[in-house]
């Protein structure tokens, strides 16, 4: 196994050091960049450094982080920084690990980001199921507070930086940034109509930035090593490092931190140990459950935001799910559709009704009641609901389904012709 590809930055020390202890983290240089930002630099200096790194959001949309910050109105008195740790995208488990292993790095990143946007109250929204991670974060925040790194008068600078941990209740839709803000305010976790965007009207109606855990966690390192250190790695418009969660039919599933620009093949075969002996590669979802499946011809695609998009999918949250030839793609598609249909907040028509329609049809196909027209109807329903929704969840229904139904239509047809009916079951 080749480990040369792996370049630990956020993942450095995991498994070796107890980075949950503030002392250990500080021995690695932890909180030094926060101190430097607060004591030596202006918010604008920090924002400039972030901008110079070309860091793009690791939460799913890949939006340039510095640009996102720049949308905040200059004259706003109150601004909020909210860290998104709701991680529920199927196949994604990087934030979970960072939360449990390196909480201080996340706190430092959040506070640097908060300082850069001129916010004195930051929040982290933690997925409800991450109970252990929540407890670890809670203890870490207490340590940081005791050390004077957050709260009133941080680093004796006279500046205030409050920090609040909020535990979600386990809804995928609360990862969508405006659903998250509603939930954080104690309302139903439903995405908000945009515009206005959070940068203008976010948490409690004030200008707000929502950034992913991993995005913010890179900030201390970008500060320490300088923006060019990050910007020069990988493709120019999609640079830096990335923690990739690899799962599915690979020998060594896990989180691998690599430079963007590594190929999909390298990730699967060199990092994750390749497929099990004797198995054939059938496809990979490169960016979580919302992304379209890529196939053999895409194995040499560079794993970066723009290249994966060009190949017809997306890098998304950076979670690869690998499928070998034991995969029942009808069941795989059904499992994902059931997930999206179940997690739909129900606000808007195409997502609410369309997802359910496809789910019911796939259920019937799996139960042996499929009819010939089903394949076309599913494709058409998925296609016509896309692009019409209030939030991106609705638009996540089509990509995987359409890609595998096109590639492996025979598997769907086989179910439709098959008698007697196989039982409806979970996916591979």
């Amino acid at each position: 196994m080749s480990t040369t590809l792996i370049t630990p930055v956020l993942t450095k020390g995991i498994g070796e050091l107890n980075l949950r202890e503030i002392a250990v983290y500080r021995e690695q240089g932890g909180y030094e960049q926060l101190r430097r930002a607060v004591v030596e630099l202006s918010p604008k200096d920090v924002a400039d450094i972030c901008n110079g790194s070309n860091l793009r959001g690791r939460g799913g949309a890949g939006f340039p982080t510095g640009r996102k910050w720049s949308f905040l109105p200059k004259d706003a008195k109150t601004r909020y920084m909210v860290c998104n740790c709701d991680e529920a995208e199927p196949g994604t488990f990087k934030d979970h690990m960072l939360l449990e292993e390196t909480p201080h790095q996340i706190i430092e990143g959040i506070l640097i980001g908060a300082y850069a946007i001129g916010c004195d109250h930051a929040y982290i929204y933690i997925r409800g199921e991450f109970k252990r991670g929540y407890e670890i974060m809670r203890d870490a925040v207490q340590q940081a507070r005791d050390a004077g790194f957050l709260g009133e008068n941080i680093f004796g600078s006279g500046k205030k930086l409050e920090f609040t941990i909020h535990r979600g209740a386990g809804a995928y839709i609360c990862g969508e940034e405006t659903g998250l803000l509603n939930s954080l305010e104690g309302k139903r976790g439903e995405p908000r109509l945009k515009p206005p965007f959070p940068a203008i009207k976010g948490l409690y109606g004030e200008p707000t930035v929502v950034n992913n855990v991993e995005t913010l966690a890179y900030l201390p390192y970008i500060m320490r090593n300088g923006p060019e250190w990050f910007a020069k790695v990988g493709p120019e418009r999609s640079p830096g490092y990335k923690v990739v969660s690899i799962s599915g039919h690979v020998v060594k599933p896990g989180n691998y931190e690599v430079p963007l620009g590594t190929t999909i093949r390298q990730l699967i075969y060199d990092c994750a140990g390749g497929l099990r002996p004797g198995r054939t590669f059938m496809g990979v979802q490169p960016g979580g459950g919302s992304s379209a499946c890529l196939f053999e011809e895409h194995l040499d695609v560079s794993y970066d935001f723009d290249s994966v998009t060009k190949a017809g999918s997306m890098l998304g949250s950076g979670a690869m799910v690998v499928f070998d030839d034991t995969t029942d793609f009808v069941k795989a598609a059904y499992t994902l559709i059931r997930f999206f249909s179940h997690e739909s907040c129900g606000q808007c028509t195409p997502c609410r009704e369309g997802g359910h329609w496809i789910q019911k049809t796939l259920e019937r196909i799996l139960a042996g009641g499929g009819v010939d027209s089903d394949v076309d109807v599913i494709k058409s329903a998925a296609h016509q609901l896309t692009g019409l929704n209030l939030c991106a969840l609705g638009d996540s229904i089509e990509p995987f389904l359409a890609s595998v139904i096109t590639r492996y239509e025979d598997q769907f047809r086989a179910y439709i012709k098959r008698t007697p009916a196989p039982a409806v079951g979970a996916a591979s």
Partner: protein
Amino acid sequence: MSAAVPQTDPASHAELVTLSIDGVEVRVPKGTLLVEAAKTIHTDIPVYCYHEKLGPAGLCRICLVEIDGMPKLQIACNTVVADGMKVHTRNPRVDDGRRAILEFFLLNHPLDCPICDKGGECDLQDYAMAWGSGSSRMIDPKTSKPKAVDLGPTIVLDEERCIVCQRCVRFDQIITREESLRTEDRAVQTIIATATGKPYVSDFTGNVTELCPVGALTSKTYRFRSRPWDNHRTTTSCTQCSVGCRMHVDERGNTVLRTMSVPEDDALSDSWLCDRGRYNVGFVNDERRLTMPLLKQDGAWVQIDWADALDLWAEKIKAALAAGGPERIGAIGGGRLLNEEALLAAHLHRALGVENLDHRIGTQTLVHHGSFANHVDLENANTIITLGRPPSQLAPVLDLRIRKAVSRNGARLISAGDYAADSFVPETHVTTPAGLKDAIGANPGRVAMIWDGVFFEGGPELTAAMHDLPAATRVDRYVLPETPNGRGAEALGMIPRGAGLGTGAMFAAARDGKLDVLSILGANPVLRYPDRALAEDGLRATPFVVVTDLFLTETAEFANLVLPVCSAFEKSGTTTDLAGDVLPVVGSVRPPDGVLADGDLLVELAERLGVTLPMPDELEAKVRELVKTPPADGAVPAYVRATAAAPGGALRVIADAAIFTGGGTLAFDTAIRELHARPHARINPATARALALADGDPVNVAGDNGTTLYDLVVRVDERVAEGAVALLDGVVRAPLNALGRAPAVRLEKVPVTA
């Protein structure tokens, strides 16, 4: 017109942007939503979740349009126009988007059209006909859900028909601010529910049935009763209170089936109706309506014909004039009559020299106060001060304006004295002069003062700060009449002048044998006059009492002659609203055979008495002139409500108002029996503690005149002053006025029997 651009910031009105919609150039103010811009060229973009008064929500996605330069179809309801924008509302791509959305909506929608109340006026039907595909591609069974969920006393929800546009929920959040409706569950299971599983109780529930674009929310009073194409529609003004909301009346077979708001009525109703105005129509067809004049003979009612009845009335008046002169005659009422009728009543009596005229039967002192500020002015006030009983219970839809002013325009709400405004928006309640001064502060901006027109002891001192407002402060004054047309009746002459007696003085004079004829025109003083015993004594002692009413009310029971009259749905004319505007009242159904309007009776009576009344066109001009004439100073005698502390541990009484009280149209409307207000006793927590009473406890209220009201429910409310109890006025089964004027009372817990 103004409705076309409601989402626009008024400040930006000057700036126009030019865009093209389907090739037509459109110029609209900056900030206008595309869906509204399209209306200016009569292009209708379909909407479900969007509503002019609720704004965009972006949920239904039916309002798709194509905009050049944007890859995806856009929703017109949340797109703000921009210069040079090129919009297509009809092309194959847009049509296909609409078809797709409709297909999604219809997947699980039940095939209820043939039995659905909304059939024929349903946006889902209409759009499906216009853009839908005619058949469903879904071959699986539809999802089934409960079809008759009882949301509360007025509304039934069919969950299968609901398209989750959330208009109902948003109405309850944005407009009423009561937040008792919400969505529950998620995904395809999403349903509308009440916030805590409690019944949906509000004074404005009926509006959601109109906002609902489909037949999911239905009114219990109208459910399964008719189809829209069988209804005949008339447009009138609601005469249940002094707001005078514009209102459609749908009638079929001479039965009023339902009333509907008028969406264009921005000036008065803001397109809403309260539930009293909307639902209290069943009385019109109640079988207890009187249809023949009734004469009391030896204690029993005898039907007589109209000619005899009118002759008798005229004779009695003539006899009284001959025997003792006009001082021995009086008339009470007018606040529930049309303007024309009130004017005729006043004119007729004054022509005979009668000055004992009064429309006031409650505690109200003054209605007409010289101010003509309107509802929209109220919406634009910066500081709103309420004095007296809450506007929500006297003029419900006006209260929605207060909520709007506070929640959307940032106005401050201050309530002064015994009553909180209780308006579902933050308020500052003050009880002292200094408190009021503080609350008003140095920069009140535009001030609106809303008063129930009742003078009370300490009132002038309490409101002293009103005289200290910064120079040039604009103050709009609103007095809320106790009766729907109180303002008209007062302006048109049903108020004592010179040596004339007011209602209370008339009863006292009658009791003392000084009145021979008392005519009560559409009024129920036995239930509403603050001292019931005095009213009853006065009526008993008057040799000839005539009462005109629809029903045999508490007051009619004391009459010698009862004349059956028309409801406001059965006659036409005008009424005067609280702002001093003359509003049209248009009859929608024929009265029961043998029933006349008060106006007709007065004309007949005048003829028999040889009095010449103004001709109809003169009448109209006179109404308009008088309504616009501010009252002469000092024209209005005052009765003052005493607020002195009650002696020895007894509680003084604060009179509460509620919209669902009264003995006439409400008591005789069985369809909405569930809405009748339950009499309460509101007390301060300290009082509750001292008396060992808890919220919800049943109590009896023993008055110092020996009368007891039974089985009231305790409401613990910190806004009630200590040493006081607030009791509901106008409840038939526990009439507050039976306790007498300014009573001191004791609360007695009703022992719970096993």
